[in-house]
């Protein structure tokens, strides 16, 4: 599956420590070093967040750079959630294999949705969810996906104000010069 990660290269931060080289399938020469995620986790998070906000006539989580937001925040302000992500992401793979015998990213879209619904309901199968609540993890990543999609681009997501464009909100809002008009 071709994944369009963003064009920029990231400096590996000392704090993350676990970042690793990731070859972009579409642009072989670029190497992305994640701040927190491993390559395998990044592939998974990309797939999860794209189901939470799928692309249609408007950009989805992937095009808006949501994974970049989450990775960046997990290595800084949201560092306290690192462990929950590490365990939770392993849990998503586990549930995916129990339900469909494949990694989450390799599943069909409908199957991915089923896995996420199982997580959301708190009824997901897997040893991992004895340690940590699947619904709480789902809420967390869902919330971070929304924050990455709707927050300001300076935090790593909402590339090009994709979500503001979708909602028809001008940015920046310049009083007296708004392009937005009542319809």
């Amino acid at each position: 599956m071709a994944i369009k990660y963003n064009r920029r290269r990231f400096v590996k931060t000392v704090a993350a420590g676990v970042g690793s080289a990731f070859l972009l399938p579409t642009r072989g020469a670029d190497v992305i070093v994640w701040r927190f995620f491993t390559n395998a986790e990044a592939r998974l998070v990309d797939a999860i967040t794209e189901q939470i906000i799928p692309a249609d006539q408007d950009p989805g989580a992937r095009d808006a750079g949501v994974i970049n937001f989450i990775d960046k925040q997990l290595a800084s302000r949201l560092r306290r959630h690192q462990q929950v992500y590490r365990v939770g992401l392993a849990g998503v793979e586990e549930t995916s294999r129990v339900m469909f015998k494949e990694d989450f990213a390799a599943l069909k879209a409908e199957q991915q949705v089923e896995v996420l619904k199982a997580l959301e309901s708190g009824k997901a199968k897997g040893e991992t969810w004895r340690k940590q609540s699947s619904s709480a993890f789902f809420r967390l990543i869902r919330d971070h996906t929304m924050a990455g999609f709707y927050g300001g681009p300076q935090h790593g997501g909402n590339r090009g104000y994709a979500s503001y464009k979708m909602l028809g909100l001008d940015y920046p809002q310049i009083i007296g010069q708004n392009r937005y008009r009542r319809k």
Partner: protein
Amino acid sequence: MALKQVNAVVVGAGAGGGVVAKELSEAGLSVVLLERGGWATFEQHGHDELISQRITILGNAFGPDDERYRRVVSAGPGKWRVVLPSEGGYNNNAACVGSGTVSYGAMAWRFMEKDFRMRSTYGAVAGSTLEDWPISYSDLEPFYEKAEWEIGVAGDMSTNPFSPPRRKPYPMPPFPLNREGETLQAAAKKLGFHPFPVPMLRNSVPYNGRAACIKCRYCVGFACEVNAKCGTHNTVIPAAIATGNCNVRTHCVAKEVAVDDRGFAKGVSYFDADDREQFQPADLVVVSASATETARLLLNSKSKLFPTGAGNRSDWVGRNLQGHAYAGAWGLFEQETFDDVGAGATIAISDFNHGNPGLAGGAMLANEFIRLPYLFADRRPPGAPSWGKAHKDFQRRFYKRSMSVMGPVQEMPVFDARVEVDPEVKDHWGIPVARISGHRHPHDVEIGRFTSSKAELWLKEAGAIQTWTNVPGLGVSGGQHQAGTCRMGNAPKTSVTNKHGQLHDIPNIFVADGSLHVTNGGFNPALTIMALGYWVGDYIRKNWKGPKSFRS
């Protein structure tokens, strides 16, 4: 090196503390105003929803920070949980010069006459410490007026028959209705409600040397980019500094009020911006650190005569923690209701604050401030999907076609809803942190159900195609509207201060912030807190006879 003795130390430069500092320094007292945060600027956050004081997922733009501050909250019987300032349970307001008044929505309410006489009006409510205030609306009226004119309020109460009496009009004309306001005004009239413009601590016209509001979409949760919002940071605190008598010390964290063996305060110890411990000697101390932190500071101020904390001889410090159960309704519309004219809340009714059959109180209802996109992602009818294509479809269809009408339910004070000091957890400076427990009174939920049904009715009349109500549960109260933890009263056994905000136990310690509230009104509290700042300040000024004042 010991610092030079001053007449007064005020702890906390928020709504109450900013006003008191100005009143005292204007009267000629030498004042040190200690504030744990710094001066806030627009540049610190811009229009960043994720760090706005309302959302905070990535931190609080206006403090406190997640690195140095902690609180402990109840997590079920006998269980406790440590929380960070950016997490919901922390019950944050703000930490900067001006505190919440920098980033607030700036609704500027006077409480009604009955709000000061809740016990006389409704009788005893089982499980609640519901009581009358020791002062009446008419006692406070001149100080409301002072707050409105010195800090600046835009409004017009002429169409609100429930408005309490006032001697003077507002200094600024009201804000015009935005599109939501127009739609709701027509509907309210059809229903026989009495709509009026929301009074705002925000310049509708140039006032006090500052610009008029530009009606941007970002207001509540943000500092104003043109400085049109009126807080203590851009009005009374600069006025205090201008007297030459007030020294504002920012990034200074008060640790305790030192009380001598005769039972009088002698000053405040605090950590300065470099984390060095300092002692500021003073003739009197005013604690204005907000309902949670004022209680914590007094409880941490242990002395020989008062081993359980200052003002706490009857074990009332920290009790009766109140906030507001925000109840209301949402409505979805066919037509666009959004016009991008901020701040957004423009219309209110006071029809359901009192006189509701079988209920001990009620709430003001107003349309909500503009909902920014991330916040709106969580506003859904019950059971609606919160993600996937359905999420996007909902955002696209309804972001500009929805309205919300909400109101702060006046809560029944509960003795066991309280702030204590945690026996183990300490902050960055080694000071024991506040620990919060207890829950709302069940009657708050009943009132919320009633007021939210009225909000829903209003939205339906305005043409909503779908509506749903939102009533908070029995969780811990407090939050941005926290109040009540150092109740004022006439009986030392059942209150912490007298009617002047002076501790019953230690006459040269005063409280001047939301802690004093006996009950919290069915309105946002800031203007009342400011009025109390003037009230307490006035008493101190009138009775100040030099350094030995307030020693008997």
